């Protein structure tokens, strides 16, 4: 009764990444986790809709892992949403393929946690900024879980990054066993 987890990973320049690379490394070989690197699969943005839908259908938990760029996901994620979540499949009267699955955002942000609130520099909480994604998951009948966030990446040292990666792996491990 363990849950199958699909990690949709999006980073356009992995060779420059510190945080996301560590997060990815921590979960990519976990049992029950399918790690799917979108920029590696679709460098030309030509998303294979059938393949993506089959992957989604075969998993119980969908994790969207990416760095926060301009308060949102890198553009391939948007392309992926637009193409894969088809009416009549993901939503609409007969679109029930995703109903009952769980959806987790795993995000890293350069800004500190303190900056992500009404009084802070960024004026909105990260949860608020993720509202479009949250609503997308809801519309498809998925449960939107409390996001996993690594804040303040610019100031993180190696140890802190490792700690964040371990926390991320633990979070996925918990999801794997967790009942709805």
């Amino acid at each position, binding site marked *: 009764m363990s849950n199958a987890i699909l990690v949709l990973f999006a980073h356009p320049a*992995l060779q420059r990444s510190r945080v996301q690379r560590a997060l990815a490394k921590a979960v990519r070989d976990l049992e029950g986790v399918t790690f799917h690197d979108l920029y590696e699969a679709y460098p030309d943005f030509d998303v294979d809709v059938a393949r993506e839908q089959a992957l989604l259908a075969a998993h119980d938990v969908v994790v969207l892992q990416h760095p926060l760029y301009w308060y949102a996901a890198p553009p391939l994620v948007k392309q992926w949403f637009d193409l894969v979540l088809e009416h009549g499949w993901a939503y609409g009267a007969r679109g029930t393929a995703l109903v009952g699955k769980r959806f987790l955002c795993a995000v890293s942000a350069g800004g500190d946690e303190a900056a992500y609130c009404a009084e802070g520099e960024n004026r909105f909480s990260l949860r608020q900024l993720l509202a479009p994604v949250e609503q997308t998951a809801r519309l498809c009948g998925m449960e939107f879980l409390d996001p996993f966030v690594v804040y303040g990446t610019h100031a993180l040292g190696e140890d802190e990054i490792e700690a964040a990666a371990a926390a991320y792996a633990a979070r996925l491990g918990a999801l794997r066993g967790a009942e709805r």
Partner: protein
Amino acid sequence: MQTGFFFQALVYLCAAVVAVPIARRLGLGSVLGYLLAGAAIGPFALGLVGREGADVLHFAEVGVVMMLFLIGLELEAVRLWALRGALLGLGGIQVVATSLAIGVTALALGAEWRVALVAGLVLALSSTAIALQSLREKGLARTDAGERAFAVLLFQDLAVIPMLVLLPLLGAHAAGAGGAAHGATAIDALPAWGRALATLAAVAAIVLAGRFVVPPLFRAVARSGVREAFTAAALLLVVAIVLLMQSVGLSPALGTFLGGVVLASSEFRHELEGDIEPFKGLLLGLFFLSVGASIDFGVVAANGASVAALVVGLVAVKAAVLLALGRAARLSAEQNLLFAAALAQGGEFAFVLFSLAAQGGVLAPEEADLLVATVALSMAATPLLLLGWERAVRPRFGARRAAREPDAIDREGPVILAGFGAFGSIVGRFLLANGVETVVLDADSDHVALMRGFGIRAYYGDASREELLRAAGAERARLLIVATGSLETMRKVIHTAKHDFPKLRVAARARSRVEAYELLDAGADAIYRASLDTALRSGADALRALGFPAYHAHRAAQRFRRHDEASWRELAAVRRDERVFQSRARESLQLLERLLREERDVPDPVDDNAWDAASLRAERARRDATDC
């Protein structure tokens, strides 16, 4: 009188050379010029050609036969199908209504029922040669009226086939009664139904041979690669059909017409058209000349009043039916008058059909003569009617110009692809897969046959010929993609296209940098270097194999391509000055050297600041340091 071939030829050519320019200068159009010249040199005026009473048309049989072959070639099945509505609606009603009107009038005037029937059917036909030639010459072929007229003429051409089969059945006389023109032939010994059957059999033979025997033969000739051999084969075909038809006592015109119809759907259509096109104008001229010469002024003079009445009556009845039809088809008044003027004459088939009817004893020889003279005069009236339309009708309808916008969906296909080799076949398959109508021209007849097997519109021929490009629809096509075998042919194709169809956009594939320069100089609007994308793709894959992220490799390849295209364009200008005394191989080497030198100095073509957070981190570190 001199009757030698060269003398005859001299007379015809002189007549054409003198009369046609004069007629055009006077605004009468070349058709009327030919007709008048023909009448002047004919047996009934100067008497330079043909003896009185002899069949002048006989000399011009080549002209008629060739013209009908060409008309047949235009009747491509696809095109007929596209026009089926107009064909059946306009054409069908025109033929039936006009036949009825003329037949009933003839009956009322006391003609025998068979005479009335034959006259009605045959006179319902109009002259494709005269109508189309005049409309094209005046630039009116693509008007509403012009296109309707084309549909009607097509239907009439098809209606000739059953008429030719049915005519012998009406024969009043027993076997052997006719055959005056061609002497006794095998077919004259048959009873009427036998002759109808024989006609059907000949039609079937031509259709079957055209479908199954001729294409393989043409393919074999085409493989030899000698263009003259192909032209010879085309002429041979026409001559063979003529002899075959004559030997069984049938109309050669019908035979070649059918031959044309059958070959219209074959891959050789455009090449045949291209081969015969240069002769076409002359042959048509010869035909018009002989129509003029055949007007029997003896008959006309003897029956002045009745000939005049017949001509006026014929034109009036035909015009009345056409006007009614045009109204029903919602033509504007101006276009409707043009439609009627263009088609209100007897057709060239009348000569064939009336002589057939005379041979079969349906018509008395004098009746046939009278009718033939009527038809010839009605043909001569057409250019005058059109002139009248131009002078009197059109000006009243203001400047609303005739030529309308070309159709959004082109019959002729918006893309012409020259060369279906390694490169062309990919482009072609891609376009076809995307539902783009593509006309393929290829110099390999096996290739062409294969493609046709899959329903691709492919034609055999040399794409650098203006006629072939025209026949493939270059005037209306939006794009020509050149991907033929040798650089020389590609240059010729581009040159022809740019010269004769300046509006056509030309894209060319180049197999090397130097070739790309040559094609650019030849005038191509866009150049596609064949190995560029593939080479960069394999380069990108090499990066991936070494562990570069896919997206990085992808962007690196794209960036490199942009750089390469830019430097290629830059060098194009420089090259023109330096090139003069160089060989291609030497030039290629120099280009490469120059590129390598430039690229050595670019450390990492993709290493920009994309998604780099390093400076952000540094700034943050500075801030933290000052905060403490």
